[in-house]
């Protein structure tokens, strides 16, 4: 870390700041392990972002018998289906635009446009309330439609054969030519659910870690900066949350609130901040006595500026490493809760799929165990490989 050298003059710090995080990520690429991590995470990120365009029961284009055309896939997109690719595109555009724009403008614009995109898509996109997955298939069968162009996997994650008359006894279906990974117990296509679940997993991982990071940085920063009474009270709070297994706390919280993706993210975030708070506190302890902090205080800078503009950039490195291990653990928490039946109900989730692999009667369906489990494993492994590479880059000692 260059903090000690850079600390003495604010100009050096200012000049070094924009380059630092990028070069860190670049340097992780020196490690072969990180490549494996990046490759898998990129794959599931793509799958998650474009999930409805890869796996859906609604065809892109449906040609009716009278020659008119329908576009059921576009009509059935939910606001999130629209907002997520747009936001992903914005982030990519921002990274490219950073070559010409200052970080503040590029990321500011990205956040602004992102909020606008979310507002617009929730305001303008309204899919039909009743979804009949069978519709296009029935229309093709009875001749009221002539042809249909389906997505790569022509099944939606909630398109369950169990709901059709006369089906249910043959479920789950083992992998075959139409269902490459078979179906789950309710007869939903496993591959389709896997693809849609990668969105859920990544969203939970990143947003929950983000929430935990914000709480941890603010509390840890205040504790490390003010010491004394604030620190004493804060540390008791930290102790409360670390005395009891996090998973027990999660279990209790989840059970008492509605089963909902967003609430799950908040709960995982609210229970996982302790580690970050400890790291930030320890770093701020060291930094608060340094000259540049004293100078900032003497200049009469507002508290938030001292804490988050001047001290935080010097303390962020160990926190980033912790966060890169925090994302997979949030993903694991979600998977485990869903596995125990306390997680998501209708949304596809790797953990919820995995829980269907064994069951009453001693049946074991290898495909339901293998594919979702492998997906969780590879995702966690990918993040851990990335985290190790990042730690090696930041920590020169080892």
């Amino acid at each position: 870390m260059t903090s000690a050298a850079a600390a003495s003059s604010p100009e050096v710090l200012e000049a070094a700041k924009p380059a630092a995080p990028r070069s860190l990520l670049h340097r992780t690429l020196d490690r072969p392990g990180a490549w494996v991590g990046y490759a898998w995470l990129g794959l599931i990120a793509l799958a998650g972002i474009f999930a409805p365009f890869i796996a859906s029961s609604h065809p892109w284009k449906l040609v009716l018998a009278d020659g008119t055309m329908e576009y059921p896939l576009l009509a059935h997109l939910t606001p999130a289906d629209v907002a997520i690719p747009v936001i992903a595109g914005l982030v990519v555009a921002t990274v490219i635009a950073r070559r010409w724009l200052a970080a503040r403008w590029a990321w500011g614009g990205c956040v602004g446009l992102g909020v606008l995109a979310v507002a617009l898509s929730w305001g303008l996109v309204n899919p039909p309330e009743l979804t009949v997955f069978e519709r296009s298939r029935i229309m093709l069968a009875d001749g009221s439609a002539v042809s249909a162009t389906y997505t790569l996997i022509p099944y939606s994650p909630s398109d369950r054969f169990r709901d059709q008359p006369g089906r249910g006894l043959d479920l789950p279906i083992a992998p075959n030519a139409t269902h490459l990974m078979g179906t789950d117990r309710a007869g939903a296509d496993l591959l389709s659910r896997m693809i849609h679940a990668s969105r859920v997993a990544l969203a939970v991982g990143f947003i929950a870690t983000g929430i935990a990071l914000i709480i941890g940085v603010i509390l840890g920063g205040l504790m490390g900066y003010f010491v004394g009474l604030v620190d004493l009270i804060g540390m008791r709070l930290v102790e409360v949350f670390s005395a009891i297994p996090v998973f027990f706390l999660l279990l209790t919280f989840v059970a008492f609130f509605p089963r909902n993706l967003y609430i799950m993210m908040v709960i995982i975030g609210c229970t996982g901040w302790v580690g970050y708070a400890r790291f930030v506190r320890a770093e701020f302890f060291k930094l608060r006595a340094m000259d540049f902090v004293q100078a900032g205080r003497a200049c009469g800078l507002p508290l938030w500026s001292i804490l988050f503009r001047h001290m935080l950039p010097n303390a962020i490195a160990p926190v980033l490493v912790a966060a890169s291990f925090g994302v997979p653990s949030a993903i694991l928490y979600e998977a485990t809760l869903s596995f125990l039946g306390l997680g998501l109900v209708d949304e596809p989730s790797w953990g919820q799929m995995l829980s269907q692999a064994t069951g009453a009667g001693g049946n074991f369906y290898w495909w339901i165990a293998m594919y979702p489990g492998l997906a969780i494993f590879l995702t966690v492994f990918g993040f851990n490989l990335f985290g190790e590479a990042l730690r090696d880059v930041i920590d020169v000692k080892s």
Partner: protein
Amino acid sequence: MLSYIVRRLLLMIPTLIGVTAVVFFVMALSPGGVGGTDLNTEGELDAQSRAALRDYYNERYGLDKPLVVQYGRWLNRVSPIGFESGQAGAVEWSKPRLLKWPDLGESTSKRRPVIDLYKEALPVTLLLNVLVSPITFLLSIWAGIHMAKRKGRAFDLAAGSTFLGLWSLPQIWVGVLLLGYLASNQYLQWFPTGGLSSTRADEWAFLPSWSSGEFNRGWLLDRAWHLVLPVICLAYADFAFLSKLMRSSVLENISADFVRTAKAKGLKAKVVLYQHVFRNSLLPLITVSAGVIPGLIGGAIVVESIFSIPGMGKLSVDAVFARDRELILAGALVSGVLGLIFILLADLAYAIADPRVSYD
């Protein structure tokens, strides 16, 4: 040392109050509140009996009182020093008691005293932990030292990536695969699918025996047979994590000045490694063990659910599903006490292992 321990034990009290308060208020502030599910799950009640049931709950648990009062009453019942509890746990201020047996209440879902349920469940979880922790610690110390000795060579590299992989393996997946491939009737049926004992194990002799040419595996072997898969499932991740930690810790010490001095004065490599490096390398392991052991209790939730072992984890999951207030609060209290005691033990062990650290 003694005064330090006493001080730490006293500091546990505010922390435990904090733990239970967090759990209590999250439960109480959730939609439906504490009594909500019980009123709903009692089936289709007419208005009159629903009102009667609500009155009963209000009277029994004081649910119509403000939350702070409810929590205070619970605290008074649990605390060894306090006042007598009257109707609905009401504090009887006129009857102070210096020492009383903590009353954890009665489980609403199982209709039994909570303390009895924990008396049955706690030893099971502790048994799992007592089996798992020494195995993982000993194995990972061994593996870590050998990896460090062969730094950069094939064994080190292979073990390094294997351990990162092991560490990333989700417990739920390992559990399901073990159950599916080693315990189901479709593949190898080597192990039982769950539970702690076979149905009739209580009638068997303690040790394995041969009677009239027939082998009886006995209670002990039967129990061990049931515990193989859960112990593997609980141990592998910590084993991988601790091995990596031990490796980096040994490597850090090997390059330290005191090791060079020890070598320079002609000590044998073995003596340097096992007497000088070894003891110093244990310190980080002791530090993290404060977190590993409460983590095992948390991990037991998953493993006990997969293998249907009637321990604390299973009890917690059942309690959470039933929204059983008394059982959940007691669970928070018990795991909080265990967690804090392990943190204290780790701190004490640190002082024993490292003479530079002293708490006096």
